[in-house]
């Protein structure tokens, strides 16, 4: 018999299997908390910070990432308060300023309500989400690449910068990488980066989205549910 705990998500009290994270719980109930570093079958690391929610405890609201928060009996969570929406938008703005050259990142930014970018664009080709590192370690057990360096110098690298012979050539790292999804009609030129928001579905979603969306499959990929015909 599976054990359940009861948590309150945006005012709705729901049962959730014990050991589930708040993010997974929310997604299963159709509350589409935006996220980037989260992949269902990989260990959550909470580095993109987009899945933040407010955890209400003793009358105080604590901002924390839902992917690393295990659901516990009696938890009260707010996923979409104005404060959270603001913070999420600002994080997404920083994200797209770092690496605009990806449809996934642009879509995510539009989804989080970003309409202008107030920082000079940089053209990084890695957002350090750690999907590749985790899949290589946890699924393929190869450990052919990892995070190297500290702070600004942090990057994903092979040991000694050379692809090791124990790399299994599975290409899952490439499949999962959000930066490999480039916008049409092609990669932006340096110095000519801009928010294209060409993905009409995401923009309209951001504008028409009710406070609690109930049918979004954001967790399954970066396609709008409307497009897949589920709405």
């Amino acid at each position, binding site marked *: 018999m599976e054990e359940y705990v009861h948590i309150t998500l945006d005012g709705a009290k729901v049962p959730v299997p014990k050991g589930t994270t708040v993010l997974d719980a929310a997604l299963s109930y159709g509350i589409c908390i935006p996220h980037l570093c989260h992949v269902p079958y990989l260990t959550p690391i909470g580095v993109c*910070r987009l899945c933040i929610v407010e955890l209400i405890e003793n009358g105080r609201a604590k901002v924390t990432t839902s992917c690393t928060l295990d659901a516990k009996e009696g938890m009260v969570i707010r996923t979409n308060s104005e404060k959270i929406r603001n913070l999420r938008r600002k994080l997404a703005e920083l994200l797209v300023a770092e690496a605009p050259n990806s449809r996934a990142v642009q879509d995510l930014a539009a989804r989080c309500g970003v309409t202008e970018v107030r920082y000079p664009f940089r053209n990084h080709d890695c957002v350090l989400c750690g999907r590749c590192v985790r899949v290589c370690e946890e699924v393929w057990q190869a450990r052919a690449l990892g995070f190297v360096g500290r*702070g600004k110098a*942090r990057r994903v690298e092979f040991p000694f910068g050379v692809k090791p012979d124990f790399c299994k050539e599975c290409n899952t790292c490439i499949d999962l990488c959000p930066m490999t999804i480039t916008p049409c009609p092609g990669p932006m030129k340096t110095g000519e980066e801009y928010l294209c928001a060409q993905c009409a579905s995401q923009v309209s979603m951001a504008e028409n989205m009710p406070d609690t969306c109930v049918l979004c499959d954001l967790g399954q990929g970066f396609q709008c549910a409307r497009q897949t015909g589920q709405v």
Partner: protein
Amino acid sequence: MASIRELTSLRETLAAERRSKRGTIILCGDTGCEASGSHLLADAIRKELAERGLEDSVELRVTGCHGFCEVGPVMVVEPGNIFYCHVSANDAGEIVSATIERGQVVERLLYADPVSGKRVIKEEHVPFYRAQDRVLLGRNKLVSPSSIEDYIAEGGYSSLAKVLEEMTPEQVIGETKASGLRGRGGGGFPTGRKWESCRAAEGEPKYVICNADEGDPGAYMDRSLLEGNPHAVLEGMLIGAYAIGARHGYVYVRNEYPMALESAKVAVVQAEDLGLLGDNILGSGFSFDVKIARGAGAFVCGESTALMASLEGKVGEPRPKDVHTVEEGLRNKPSTLNNVETWANVPLIIEKGSAWFAEKGTEKSKGTKIFALTGRVKNTGLVEVEMGTPLRTLIYDIGGGAADGVGVKAVQTGGPSGGCLPTSKFDLPVDFETLAEAGSMVGSGGMVVMDERTCMVDVAKYFLNFLLDESCGKCFPCRVGIDRMLEIVTDITEGRGSPEQIALLEDLAETVSETSLCALGKTAANPVISTLRYFRDEYEAHINDKRCPAGVCRELIEYWIDEEKCTGCGACLRACPHRAISGEKEGPHTIDAATCVKCGICHDECQFDAVVIR
């Protein structure tokens, strides 16, 4: 030693031996005084004592830091509590013959009150010490760090004995809670409550950890405590471990403190030899061992989860603290991590009682706190005051006010997680809540005094640079947010600032503080926010007038030689490392603006005030 009785009788023997001495010469041998030659002085004294046949009846004790680093080498002679400063090896003969043999004071070595000029004889009357309550630091002079016998003679390990013999773990926790002791590393979390949660947590074995990483630049209190009185820390850990039910302990010392590492290692071996660490301590059935671990150069490893990761041999990356370390810490087992100063307070609380501790300080911040008073102040050193002491007392009464007569402008407390407070806030009492409300924090105890020659925007840039360098880089807001803040502040200091950037800075600050994964990120915006709050005029001068009022920001200043004052001595030319100055001997010199990097070295060299900043 197999029993408490053995410990007590050993103590009595050692104490009697101490009392039998006709005199004691206590000499500070810590880094500061050592750099000024205190070890040479120690050798000279030993020689003098030997020559006069006094080596058995007079004790020469080389100790850890006495706190008054500005006037080192520092010496105290007993009996009489006579305080000598700026002592050199040449003074050894006179000290032994006059003070030890004839009980006479050597006038010229006494501390002279800077205002009245009067010489002060007793250590307790020295103005620097008078306003302090040196409960912890004052004990440094009682022990030689490498002597467990000294520690025992002074009552050391009697608190441990009391705990093992008369108290249950719950009672120890109760006393700690009643004292009101809060973490001294910066977090300020109630220590007793932390121990209680750890005791209640499930999982074996439990760990007790001493955080001696002390990464805050400008802070060296923990170093001095650990170097000067390591057994006080060990005793505290033993008592804490007993209370929590932990069997193993670690002391994590930062790599940059080789002497503290050595001191801790020696102390552990000595304690083990006497049966105060290991199995069945003093026959009580309680077992506890301590390992010393070394940091490897990472400020972030001062954060508890990062420290634990480092202990496990991994990179020092913090993890989310939704589950506390008292429940799942080192190797996912219940762990209690406390700062060096926190541990050092424990034996005293047990000895003198929680009421004694709670009587000091304010309602919510009990006890004393050690501060490292540094920067542009006359008396730099380590200062221990009752919580609630006003900043003014620390900076002026104890610190002696501005160095070089240039006006004090601000004080920075709490390291990179703290903030800068202007002189208008100097009446604020030093305690956890008050400083936090004002936009700074007590932090680990670093207190850097700044004057009119410090640019507050440059200070913000300095801390952002530091934090970006030390950030582990894992989470997005810290890594990118701090970088973007630094980008903006750099623009401002280099004359590219615009008014909209202030709003952007505040926006970034909010994002970084609210969404970062660990305390490094969460507090990273404090230096920027506090300087914006209190020194906005400086930001505005940089942005609107492209001017740096303090004359620091290199892109906004120019160095220029006033021909009328220049005597052609050539000192600046010789001093310039970038070869930017030219001129004939006895003729006026000029600075080539294209080559000059505005380091300011020539300005310091010139004796005639001919080098001007504009």
